[in-house]
Every structure is written in C-alpha cells, then in structure tokens.
C-alpha cells in the first residue's frame, strides 16, 4: 500500500545534507585531518620517461635532522610492493625500472613537509636512460622498446581474470567482440564511411589533490583515511600488500574534493601505509595538483570506425578498431578499453558488428578511469561519422539517429539487459530545445549527438539502516560523497521509505570498519545499486515495525502504513519510539535493516548484465571566429534518461558539471607530451574551463519514465551529459563551416588551419 502512495521526499530538490558544513568551512577532507605525532611525506619522482634505476641512495636524506624514514623500491622487502586492479604491475616505488616521467622512485617521511621536501634533494639516484615510447604509434611499431618485459601478476578482481597482456609487445590487453557478419554487411551496404578520430589524454583535476593519512596501531591493524572512491578495493590492495586479513584494515573516507574517476582504486594509499609502517608513526601524504598529472589521466585513443548504411539510412554494420593509450601501468585501463569498446555502436540498432580494441602501454602517466570510462573516445568517433553519413545521404542528422535508435525493451547484445530507456524522447527534447527545426542565425551552427553506456557488472552493494530509539535513522553505506550528492540521495531514499524528514536521517560516511561493502563509487551506479540496497534495508526496518505494531494492535500487518514517523492503522497510530519501547520493553535498542544487491554473473558478453543503461542526448549551438579559429559554444542542451530524478537539483548540477567538463576536452584540454616529457603538467599551463567559458544558455533536462532498476524507478546518471558534448559541438561546427575535425581538442589553431584548408567561402 505504501508503495502506491505519492512520493514525499524522492523527486524533491531538497538541499544537500552536507551543504551547511561545506559553506561554513567545517567539512573535513583528508588533508584537514591531524593525528598526534603525524609525519609528512614527499615523493621523489623520475625525471625520465624510461630509465633503469641502477641505485637509489637514501642515506644522506635519512640522516638529515627531522627525517624519520627515507625509502626506495629496494627497501620494500618486508611487503609485497606491487599493486593494481587489472594487473599488479605497479610497484609502490620504482623497482629497477622507472616507466614514466613522474613515477615515484623514493619517498621521505619527516617532521614537516618542508623538511621532507628538502630531504628529497639529498637522495642520489643513478639512472640509465632507456629509449621510451610516448605515443601509440611508437609503442605499436615493430621492435618498439617495451614498457614491461615481464609477465605481470594478475589483479585481484575475478571479473578481470580474462585480461591478458600480449607478451613481447606493448599491448596490455586486447578486446574483440563480434556479432553477425560485419565484413559482408559492409560490402553490401549502399554507403560505407570510414575515418579515424583522436581523443587526447586529459587530466581529471579534481580540485582536491590525492591524499592519504595512514596509521598502524599497537595491535598491528592499519587505518587509512583516504580520498578514495573505492574504500573496499583499497582495502584489498593493502591486505595483499601487507599480508594482513581484510578485517584488520580500515579505510575511512571523509569528504572528497571531487573524483571523476581519478580516485578509483589504490593511488597513494599503498605508499602512505608503507611509510607509516616504516616510521612507526601516522604518515600523511598530501600530493599537489601538479602531482595529479603524474598519478592518473584519461586514456587517450585513436579510433577507426567504419559504418555501413542502406540508402534509406538504416545502419547495417559497424566495425571499430580502437587503440587506447593506457600509459605506463595498467591501473583499470584494460577494463576501460573493454567496457568502452563494448558500446562502440552507441544507442543504435546495428545487426553486424566487429570490434577490436587494444590497451597499449606507453611511457606516460598511467591512464585510468575518468567520467565516461572509455565511452567518450568512441562516441567522439561514431557520432561524428553519423553526421557525415547523414550529410552524404541528404538526411537530417536527428532523423537519421532516430531511425536507428534502439527501442525500449530491445536487445543490445545477447544475454545483456534489454534497453531500459526511451532515448528517442531525450533526443527529441534536446533537438526541440535547441530549436533544431527553426532557422537559426546565419553565424550559428547546431549539432546533436547521443550516447549509451553500460554500468559495471556484476557488482555488489550492501547497506544497513538503523532506526534508533528516538525515531531517527542512520544509513550505513559505503558510497563515497565526492560532490555528486550521494549522502543526500541515500538519506532521501531512507526518509521516503520510513516516512521521516530527511533531517532525521544521517548518512554515515564510509568506513570499512562500520559501513558495509560497496564495490565502487563510479560507473554512475550509486543511486541505482547502493540506493536500492538502502531502500531494501529501510523496507526491512519497515517490515519489523509492522510486525511489532501488528501484534500490539491486533491488526494484520497489511492494514498498516508508515506516516510522519509512526505506524498508522485505522485504529490509531504508534510513533516509532513507542514501537521500539514495545519491542524492547524499555527506551533503548534499535531496529536494524539490511539490504543486499548482488545480481551476480550472467551470460552477457562481459560476464554481467548492466544494471541499467545510461543514455543521454546533447545539442549544441556554436559560433566561430573565422579570424582566430576560436569556437564558442553559445547554447547547450543535455537531456538524460534517468528513470527518476531522486533529487532534481543535485542531478541538474551534476549534469551541468558534466557538460562543462566535456567542454574542457572538446575545446581546451590536452596533456601534451614531447618525447615522454609532459609539457603542461600544472594548472598554470593546463587550462580547464572557467566560468566565462560556459555557454550563455546551458540547460540540463531529464526524461523520467520510472523505468530504471534503481529505487523508485531511478537509474544512473552523471556521466551521460559529458559524452555527447564533443561530437555535438564538432557536428555543429561542421554544419556551420563545412569543416570536419577529427582530433580533439578543437583548439583555435586546429580550427583555423582547417578553415584555411577549406578555403574561403
């Protein structure tokens, strides 16, 4: 009965539960934490893209007053010094070889940061520079220097067990997938188009740099306060590294100053924990923003796509050959490649498909997860090429897409979840809002693009909901608050089920000693998976309330409902404190509810069925300064198919941020390497979008059909808004100027050159 009641809290733009602590400066991030006796660490990094590390002498540094420990890779004999989620190919500190410029080679812990920094100068490293590969072309050339020569150790995720490096090459993993007969289909198509597109390496720049604080206690247990999106994955890494049972490692996650994927899987935690062990003190490692450029980046890519269409616009086949540059260590790069490539055909019905993708090691900063997880690189290619196809067939790009969109309930791939949204609605709204069918100003161009993305599968989320004696509620879940608003959303879900105000609900921050298992805060999964676990846990509490009240009131449980913090029946109401007092015979005790979401493995191509499909469309209106080549996005509309917006205010904010982050790699951002040397690895040199780069009109809307598998019909969002941005902008530019660019970002220089090459019109 309560399930049919209109929603009270879910769907409302309630203010964030952490807003006041954040505007008053009280919100705590890792680097705001202080422990007694805490030491401060600094990292010495390799100046070479590739070098043999013949000897590291830390003696002088270690002898400096104020220095507590100075470590190199060779010192780490008392632990397993390798980590990594896909392959354990990454040493905590370089061992024998440094594989990219900026790789940690030694570290110092000292009484303060300055002492630690100064001690780095006293470390002598004998490097023998080796030939490096810093581009895909170099890495894939016959006889190329190898980034890794040995067989890496398998990572610790069972679902990644299929990942394999190709010995004797720089190919760290190859993913192939096919359906139908793509070659024959393309041979029989009326129009076949082929082109190659490039996506740059870009930096997340979460404003809070990576940081960790680690302390071992007298019982040999380790606690790490970490700015991580995956406390439970970090725990596994540290347990392996130190040979300690999972239960003796505790990962506590305070607020994160942004993540965007940069804080998935272990980053600084292994080194910080090793230093804490070596010094016998709590150790804090607070990296700089410049060091983030040496920690992780988006995997850059070169993508060749062939599309075949019939004269009437029907897509008949797609082939895609994608090479992703995953940098010097695998991190989660192989899975980025696999998952990104899996949806290379986008949200379209394509009967014949052949996909072949490689993750390629280079001597550059490791590539990892970044909002979109491999999909932006491929959507850039496919969505650009679809506009070319529309042009060649004399078709409207929106109509051509509409004709080929997968429908609600249709199969994407055998064994995987059927399509669970109506992307035609998103595309329609986006086109309408940008005024697609109306004549625009002559100096403006419009473009559209769409996206489809799978979430991580199989995956697990567990949650506990506690109803306290005063009727207040605690939600225990390990979804990490990194700005997206998950604490607020989880509190709303519990508040909805238990009929209390959001203010009566506390979302407890992740702490692996307290909050139960959650696989990861990424892949747009928290609202759907963790949210569903919280909903189930709250429903468990509700059933317990019903049982106690039913017995006490002598009415069947099905005649009961929850309202305003009480169990209500026709005969009367019992406020929660009364129900608990009845249950426990005193004013104490609590009701504990549990929720587990664990869909398990399936026959889907990647081993698990996506819990939802993330789908969105974008429409851009651009202008260009023909003198300078500067592109300006004047208006942008994003429409995401979200099932239900649990909190429209937060969702809108997240999608606005996604669009602007997408504008970053579309117009501005690229980590520029020259022979393995990163030329712009600071915020002074690397330009991210500012307020004045944002389109004058930026609108983020949603399609809500309550058709998601998450609570109240919700499904994941937050990545979808970013993905269509580049192709939508480039398509708009092409329609305005006739110039088609294949390499991102669309810098003034590139655009100007292309305009020049086109000639004046």
């Amino acid at each position, binding site marked *: 009965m309560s399930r049919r009641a209109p929603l009270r809290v879910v769907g409302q733009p309630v203010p964030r539960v952490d807003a006041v602590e*954040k*505007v008053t400066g009280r919100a705590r991030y890792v680097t705001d934490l202080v422990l007694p006796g805490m030491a401060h660490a600094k990292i010495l990094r390799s100046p070479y893209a590739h070098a043999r590390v013949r000897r590291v002498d830390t003696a002088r540094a270690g002898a400096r007053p104020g220095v507590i420990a100075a470590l190199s890779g060779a010192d780490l004999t008392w632990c397993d010094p390798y980590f990594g989620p896909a392959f354990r190919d990454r040493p905590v500190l370089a061992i024998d070889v440094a594989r990219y410029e900026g790789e940690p080679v030694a570290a110092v812990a000292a009484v303060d940061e300055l002492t630690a920094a100064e001690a780095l100068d006293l470390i002598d490293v004998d490097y023998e520079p080796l030939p490096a590969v810093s581009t895909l072309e170099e890495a894939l050339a016959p006889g190329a220097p190898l980034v890794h020569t040995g067989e890496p150790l398998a990572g610790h995720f069972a679902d990644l067990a299929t990942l394999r490096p190709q010995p004797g090459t720089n190919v760290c993993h190859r993913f192939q997938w096919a359906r139908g007969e793509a070659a024959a289909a393309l041979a029989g198509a009326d129009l076949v188009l082929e082109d190659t597109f490039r996506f740059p390496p870009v930096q997340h720049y979460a*404003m809070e740099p990576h940081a960790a604080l680690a302390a071992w206690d007298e019982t040999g247990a380790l606690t790490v306060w970490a700015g991580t999106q995956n406390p439970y994955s970090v725990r596994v890494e540290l347990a392996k590294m130190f040979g300690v049972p999972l239960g003796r490692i505790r990962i506590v996650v305070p607020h994160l100053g942004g993540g965007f994927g940069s804080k998935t899987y272990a980053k600084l935690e292994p080194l910080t924990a090793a230093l804490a062990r070596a010094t016998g003190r709590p150790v804090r490692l607070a990296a*700089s923003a410049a060091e983030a450029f040496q920690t992780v980046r988006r995997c850059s890519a070169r993508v060749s796509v062939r599309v075949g269409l019939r004269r009437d616009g029907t897509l008949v086949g797609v082939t895609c050959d994608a090479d992703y540059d995953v940098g010097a260590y695998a991190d989660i790069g192989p899975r980025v490649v696999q998952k990104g490539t899996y949806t290379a055909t986008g949200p379209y019905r394509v009967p014949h498909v052949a996909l072949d993708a490689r993750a390629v090691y280079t001597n550059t900063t490791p590539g990892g997860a970044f909002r979109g997880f491999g999909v932006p690189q491929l959507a850039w290619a496919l969505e650009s090429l679809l506009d070319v196809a529309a042009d060649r067939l004399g078709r409207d790009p929106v109509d051509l897409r509409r004709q080929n969109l997968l429908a609600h309930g249709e199969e994407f791939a055998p064994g995987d979840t059927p399509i669970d949204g109506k992307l035609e609605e998103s595309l329609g709204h986006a086109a309408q809002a940008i005024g697609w069918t109306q004549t625009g100003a002559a100096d403006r161009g419009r473009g559209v693009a769409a996206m489809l993305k799978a979430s991580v599968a199989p995956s697990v989320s567990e949650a506990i909901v506690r109803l306290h004696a005063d009727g207040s509620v605690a939600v225990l879940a390990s979804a990490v608050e990194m700005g997206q608003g998950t604490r607020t959303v989880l509190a709303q879900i519990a508040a909805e089920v238990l009929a209390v105000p959001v203010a009566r609900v506390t979302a407890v921050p992740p702490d692996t000693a307290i909050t139960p298992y959650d696989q990861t805060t990424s892949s747009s999964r928290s609202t759907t998976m963790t949210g569903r676990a919280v909903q189930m846990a709250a429903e468990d509490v509700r059933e317990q309330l019903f049982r106690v009240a039913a017995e006490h009131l002598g009415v069947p449980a099905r005649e009961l409902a929850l309202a305003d913090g009480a169990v209500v029946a026709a005969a009367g109401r019992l406020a929660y404190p009364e129900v608990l007092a009845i249950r426990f015979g005193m004013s104490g005790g609590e009701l504990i509810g549990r929720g587990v979401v664990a869909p398990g493995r399936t026959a889907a191509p990647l081993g698990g069925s996506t819990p939802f499909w993330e789908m969105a469309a974008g429409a851009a209106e651009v202008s260009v300064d023909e003198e300078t080549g500067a592109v300006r996005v004047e208006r942008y509309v994003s429409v995401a198919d979200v099932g239900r917006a649990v909190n429209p*205010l937060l969702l809108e904010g997240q999608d606005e*941020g996604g669009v602007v982050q997408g504008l970053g790699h579309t117009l501005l951002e690229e980590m520029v390497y020259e022979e393995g040397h990163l030329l712009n690895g600071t*915020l002074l040199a690397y330009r991210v979008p500012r307020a*004045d780069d944002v389109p004058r009109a930026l609108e983020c809307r949603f399609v809500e059909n309550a058709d998601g598998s998450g609570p109240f019909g919700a499904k994941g969002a937050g990545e979808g808004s970013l993905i269509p941005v580049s192709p939508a902008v480039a398509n708009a530019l092409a329609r305005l100027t006739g110039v088609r660019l294949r390499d991102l970002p669309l810098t003034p220089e590139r655009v100007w050159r292309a305009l020049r090459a086109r000639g004046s019109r």
Partner: protein
Amino acid sequence: MDASAAREPIHLVVNGRARDLAVEPYALLLDVLRDDLDLKGAKRSCDSQVCGACTVLVDGLAVSACTYLAVEADGRSILTVEGLAEGESLHPVQRAFVDAGAVQCGFCTPGMLLTTRALLDENPAPTREDVLHYLRGSLCRCTGYRKIVEAILAAARARGQASAPARVE
C-alpha cells in the same frame, strides 16, 4: 630547518579575533591559517594562484593565501570562511550558495564564498558579465559554474533588498 630562518612576530586580526604569532619569513598565509590557527576552511589546490580555492580576504581584498606570505599580512585583518556566518545564521552569500545548489564537493566553496563577498563589497549590483569576469581566478570542476553564478546574482539581489529599506529610513 635552518637556524637562519628566525621566526618573526606578526599580529593579525583573524575573523575579528586578535592573534599574535611567530612565523618563518617564508611561511605562507595559507599554512599559517590552516596549521597554526587550525582554520581548515581555506583549501590548497593549484598552489599557484590559478584556482582560488585558498582565497581569503586581507583587509577586505581577496588574495590567494597559497602565494601570500604570512609576514605580509602583519597588522592586517583577515576574513576566512569560518568568519562569514554570524553565529549560527549563515551569511546571505552562504545562504544563496546553499539554496541555488552551488555546492557540490565543496572544495572550491570557501574560496568562492570569499571571492563573492569581495565582489559584492566592491560592486553591490554586479551584472552577469561582472560576475563572470570576477570569477576568472576561481575554478570549480564540479558544478559547471552556472549555479555558482546564479547564487552570486541571488546574493546580490538579496543584499540589495536588505539594504534598500535601510536607505529609505
């Protein structure tokens, strides 16, 4: 630490409270605030005067505390995010940020709030263009800025309304 780096006495008024400190000549205002005075609101991000996360007001002017020497602040009055609210009631700028949904991860927020405060002190009725210009030294990677700009304009309007009757009286 070199013995030559003798500490220098400085006198600050931080959030209305007088503070006498001894700091190294090279100590940055950001570190003094965060470590010596335990005011953790101002954040360190770019460390190079680009992002604005460390912004505090020194005699009413917005400065990047990450590149501002503490000794330069001697004798001056400093406002940090911790000093914005009056007791339990939020400053109108804080209120506007909460209401507009202009806060996500919150890492840029303290700097944004103080930048806004400085802007509105200087220009109580800014246009959207004024706001965009003023925010050139304030980065946010989460929000896409739209709600921040809305919050600033709303705070200006609220302030205008609050001060208008005062002028009439």
